[in-house]
């Protein structure tokens, strides 16, 4: 995406005969100094605090290291073997993947449906949007604490169920290891559906009204219009949302850590909470780094495959627009 837009930009420059020669493209010392002077602060901070730590994580992952002494106990791939043969870590990967899939299958359609309905002329639309957006602006920690209070045994949620005659459905929402995963998924959906809906609504703004008018003159029903015009045109937005959702689900930490701490009995452990629990809290920074690298590689594979097979079309479209 990056390079394409750049070439598109310079193509415009070259094609413009009226413009005086673009300022000297050959390097005079002064402008090179100015250019790198502008880029340097960002580059230095970014390389020092993003690139270097990522590289260091890869290095640490081959050592048995508690973070204090010298880095001298090289153990090859033992940390990786240990992580990938630990049933708890495999469970964590499974949980992350389950949340990826459930989010796509459940949150996606719900968000699209609600956005399609709300994308009509509606009294109080701004207010509705603002309210739907509320959970997204809360930090995951605050949201998790709120639900911890609400879902406590015989707490307000149970009382609510009883008051509508569904008392029989009461569960130990956060303490029963067969239920807690679904509780977590519900709270995550509560937190992130509003964002998905808003993203979809923003995408819908880009769909021209004329198309609806033309289709309805041709006798298409509301649902036909949505099915054959709106949803396909919403494609890029849906694909980007899916991307953000997948990466977010793989890196899940704050919400789980505060809501359940990964428990009970590892029922909600994720890769990131596993790293915190077994890497940091036990001062096994080498092992924690190996877990981080695995987490990164899984995200990378997802990102690359997705970009290659799904997003490519959108970027090609963008190049077309740019030129």
């Amino acid at each position, binding site marked *: 995406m990056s390079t394409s837009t750049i070439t598109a930009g310079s193509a415009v420059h070259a094609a413009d005969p009226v413009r005086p020669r673009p300022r000297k493209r050959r390097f005079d010392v002064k402008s090179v100094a100015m250019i790198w002077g502008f880029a340097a602060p960002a580059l230095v901070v970014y390389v020092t605090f993003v*690139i270097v730590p990522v590289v260091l994580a890869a290095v640490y992952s081959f050592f048995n290291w508690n973070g204090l002494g010298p880095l001298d106990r090289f153990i090859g791939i033992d940390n990786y073997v240990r992580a990938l043969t630990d049933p708890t870590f495999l469970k964590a990967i499974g949980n992350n993947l389950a949340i990826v899939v459930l989010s796509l299958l459940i949150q996606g359609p719900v968000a699209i449906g609600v956005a399609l309905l709300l994308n009509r002329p509606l009294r109080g639309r701004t207010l509705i949007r603002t309210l739907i957006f509320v959970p997204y602006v809360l930090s995951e920690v605050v949201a998790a604490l709120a639900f911890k209070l609400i879902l406590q045994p015989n707490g307000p949620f149970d009382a609510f169920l009883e008051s509508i005659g569904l008392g029989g459905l009461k569960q130990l929402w956060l303490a029963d290891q067969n239920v807690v995963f679904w509780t977590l998924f519900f709270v995550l959906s509560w937190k992130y559906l509003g964002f998905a809906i808003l993203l979809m609504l923003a995408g819908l703004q880009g769909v021209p009204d004329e198309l609806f008018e033309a289709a*309805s003159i041709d006798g298409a*029903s509301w649902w036909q219009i949505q099915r054959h015009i709106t949803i396909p045109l919403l494609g890029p937005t849906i694909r980007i949302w899916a991307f953000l959702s997948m990466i977010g689900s793989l890196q899940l930490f704050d919400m789980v850590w505060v809501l359940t701490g990964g428990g009970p009995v590892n029922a909600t452990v994720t890769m990131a909470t596993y790293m915190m629990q077994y890497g940091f809290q036990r001062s096994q920074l080498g092992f924690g780094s190996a877990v981080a690298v695995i987490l990164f590689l899984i995200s990378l594979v997802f990102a690359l495959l997705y970009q290659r097979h799904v997003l490519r079309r959108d970027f090609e479209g963008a190049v077309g627009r740019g030129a």
Partner: protein
Amino acid sequence: MTTTTIPTVGQHAGRKFDWGQPAVYFVALVAIAVTIAPVVYLIIGGFRTTGQINEDPSAWPDPWVITNYLTVLTSENFWVQLVNSTIAAGFTTGGVIVLGVMAAFVIARYSFRGRDALFTLFTAGLLFPLTVAVVPLFTMIKGLGLLGNLWGIIIPQVAFALPTTIIILVPFLRAIPAELEDAATIDGAGRFGFFWRIVLPLAGPGLVTVGVLAFVASWNAYLLPLLILGDPSHSTLPLGTQAFATQFSSDTAKVMAFTTISMIPALVFFTLAQGRIVSGLTGAVKG
């Protein structure tokens, strides 16, 4: 989807009664109820006593008490944490904007050797979440003697916000017409003059977008502050809220009050900036 009965779109201009509208309002109401019920419950719960809550979790406050909120508002830790969150978010935002716009400016408007590589390096940053780098970051920050210091979270947050910032700003700055640059040059402005007097003012909306995104991320950040800041009297609001909830875990009402109050700044700020957040994110994805 019960909405198949909705007549064609053309009709909701208002001539016939649109049966779709009640359905839409119903969906909207359900969505809103599910969304804000927990928040409203928390706000109201803060006005009860823990005794009242234990007796009947879903009743109305009787009588209304404000002592919970007063306790929070008069506790020193709350204000320290509020100030810390504000400082961290403010400096993160400022740092990201200054560093981001300078780098984005040269990437967007000058062709020089290494430009594509530079841009690619920054975009690659999207793939490196903080989670991956957090172990070495912790040891680095410790080595710099910044554990427990707000700078220990500000600097890494700036670094991790740079990729999104630059990706959003580059197309934005590229869109400034070349004629303006020529005009500025003719009027005798150098590159600094052009950057200062033309680019920065025109980039305003883009800067607001990236600023809001960085602010949101910093305000809600948890993992890094958890490792770097520690002790509640030096921490930010999310950490402080959690520490308070642990400390007073038996006093539900007080925890509700603290949680409610710690929501307010975020709600006010982000409600105001809502449009920016959305346009920023969609802008970022369309980059």
